[in-house]
């Protein structure tokens, strides 16, 4: 492996690439157009009820159930239950929850005997909706406390900050579009390049030079990593500046970018290698690319899709890239991101092995 060869090939390839308008369109213009389009359609919409997660540890009495029902009847919150056998803090970070209420096991007994009891409200004060949930809780607590003539605060609420925050549509769109670029920029070009180089016998021509297949592959990988990164920076900049997205940027985006580009550069080579002609290569490329483009959480979170479609999404490699990017940029949930990364590496390794096997520079 010679760096010199990789650089020489990178020079030639990037020149050829930059002279093609369609390639530039797909990497820079297309995501921007989608972003402006979807961003302006959805950025105005807000959900009416604020999600509030409740963990009720009190299963001895029924006061806690009455409390939750009352809370629900305010219509300010949309209540979801957290199972009582989990650690609430861990659950909050795993599920990127921005507002949760903890009801201790002695709630009913304390309330019935007029003893002091404390609830814990976990929330991210930076998220605007968290105060809505807080209001709903205060109102309910006051209602319960007013039962006692003494007016002493039997129920108190302790607030605890959590750093998770709810995502807006644009926040979802940014990792989604980055995923789209990671997918389409190497996939479309590589399928085309490999099938047309094969037809024009350019690979055969290259096989007569000291350039090796792995050097050629690496130069493509470096190039697509570079332009995908540029495109990602553009997408983030537009999202933050134009749509006031609050996604958190961090260095862990880079490994996802790298493994994604590696995966789809390999997949493009594989699709181009197995097809007999340029036409069939483009058909195979589209069959692989389009479902992935729509079902992996690129344009909307997959949670809003029917469950059967969601299970399809789970077998698409791009899903894990986008889910990982979501976990990092929106939820700061690194456990989930790590899992996504491991899955992506495994899938990429399989695709790479298949592409190495099928990618030949000369036919017998």
């Amino acid at each position, binding site marked *: 492996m010679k760096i*010199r*060869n990789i*650089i*020489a*090939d990178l*020079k*030639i390839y990037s*020149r*050829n690439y930059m*002279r*093609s308008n369609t390639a530039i369109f797909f990497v820079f213009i297309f995501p921007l157009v989608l972003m402006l389009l979807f961003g302006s359609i959805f950025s105005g919409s807000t959900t009416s009820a604020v999600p509030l997660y409740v963990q009720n540890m009190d299963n001895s009495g029924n006061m806690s159930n009455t409390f939750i029902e009352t809370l629900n009847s305010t219509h300010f919150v949309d209540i979801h239950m957290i199972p009582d056998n989990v650690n609430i803090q861990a659950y909050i970070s795993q599920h990127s929850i921005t507002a949760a209420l903890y009801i201790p096991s002695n709630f009913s007994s304390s309330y019935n005997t007029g003893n002091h009891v404390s609830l814990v409200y976990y929330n991210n004060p930076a998220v605007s909706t968290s105060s809505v949930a807080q209001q709903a809780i205060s109102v309910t607590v006051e209602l319960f406390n007013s039962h006692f003539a003494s007016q002493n605060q039997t129920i108190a609420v302790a607030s605890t900050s959590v750093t998770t925050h709810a995502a807006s549509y644009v926040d979802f769109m940014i990792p989604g579009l980055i995923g789209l670029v990671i997918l389409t920029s190497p996939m479309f070009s590589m399928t085309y390049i490999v099938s047309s180089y094969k037809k*024009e*016998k*350019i690979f*055969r*021509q290259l*096989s*007569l*030079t*000291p*350039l*090796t297949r792995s050097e050629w592959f690496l130069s493509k990988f470096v190039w697509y990593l570079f332009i995908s990164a540029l495109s990602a920076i553009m997408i983030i900049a537009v999202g933050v500046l134009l749509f006031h997205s609050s996604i958190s940027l961090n260095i862990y985006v880079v490994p996802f970018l790298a493994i994604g580009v590696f995966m789809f550069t390999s997949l493009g080579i594989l699709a181009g290698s197995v097809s007999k002609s340029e036409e069939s290569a483009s058909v195979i490329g589209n069959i692989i690319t389009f479902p992935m483009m729509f079902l992996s959480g690129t344009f909307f979170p997959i949670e809003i899709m029917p469950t059967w479609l969601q299970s399809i999404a789970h077998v698409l490699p791009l899903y894990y890239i986008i889910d990982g990017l979501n976990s990092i940029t929106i939820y700061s949930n690194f456990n989930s991101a790590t899992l996504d990364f491991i899955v992506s590496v495994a899938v990429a390794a399989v695709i790479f092995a298949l592409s190495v096997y099928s990618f030949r520079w*000369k*036919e*017998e």
Partner: protein
Amino acid sequence: MDAITADDVHKSYGSIKAVDGISFKVQKGEVYSFLGPNGAGKTTTVEMLEGLRKADRGEIRVLGEEPWHEASKLGRTVGVMPQDFRFIERITSREAIRYYCSLFSVRDKTKELLSLVDLEEVQNVQFQNLSGGQKQKLGICLALINDPELIFLDEPTTGLDPKARRKIWDLIRKLKDEGKTVILTTHYLEEAEMLADRVAIMDHGKIIAEGSPGEIINRMGKGRKLTVPYGEKLQEYLSKDLKLDCNRTGDSISVSIHSNKDVINILDFAEKNGIELTSLSLKEDTLEDIFVDLIAEKEGTS
């Protein structure tokens, strides 16, 4: 020493026997030319020598190596200009040559190579916009980047204008003077006759004649031919009295003569009988005549 040896080499594409058991040797420093009609198997043969195709059967050695498996090793000492050369579409000739120079780790030869084949004027034109002949010239440049000791040129002059063809001829002569071995495929018989030390005439995957152009002409040529205007009396004299092989085409008769004596007899006869010889020509068979005869013979028998 032999630059190339091939022994009983076969190659089929499905049911088509493209190369059907050929054997030959090429010495170092030789210009060796493959001739043959379209589809004879020339390109297939040359590609097996270049390591671009795998022979089904038979033994090939190029500079001592087995080319299919040692292609990358051979790539450093061998230059290849394929028939129908293609390159990356939006790359210019200058960039392509630079690219090859850095891959082969040689100094930048862009200028000298471009001028060698007269490509300076279009050095900044993208490959896809070059004319057919210009593309081919770039192919020749790329074959010479690594200063190879063995060069394969598959129809290098097909489609070139007369001036460009002469330049390529000069180039081949120059390569030969430098002691390089050249494998040349061509459809122009005068080109092979002029440049090649030895030629191999191929047809239907077989070598049907091999040797220096002179040898082939001596061995297979039908000697000298005298062409005279047609006349009944003259024709009778030629075939009956001199017992020569005559062939009438239109207004003339072409006679295969055995010696100068035949010519003198014919002239004498014409003089005595008052036959006006309005045209008269004496010509030796060229490689082309033999080529046409050989291929026609084959077609006739098969």
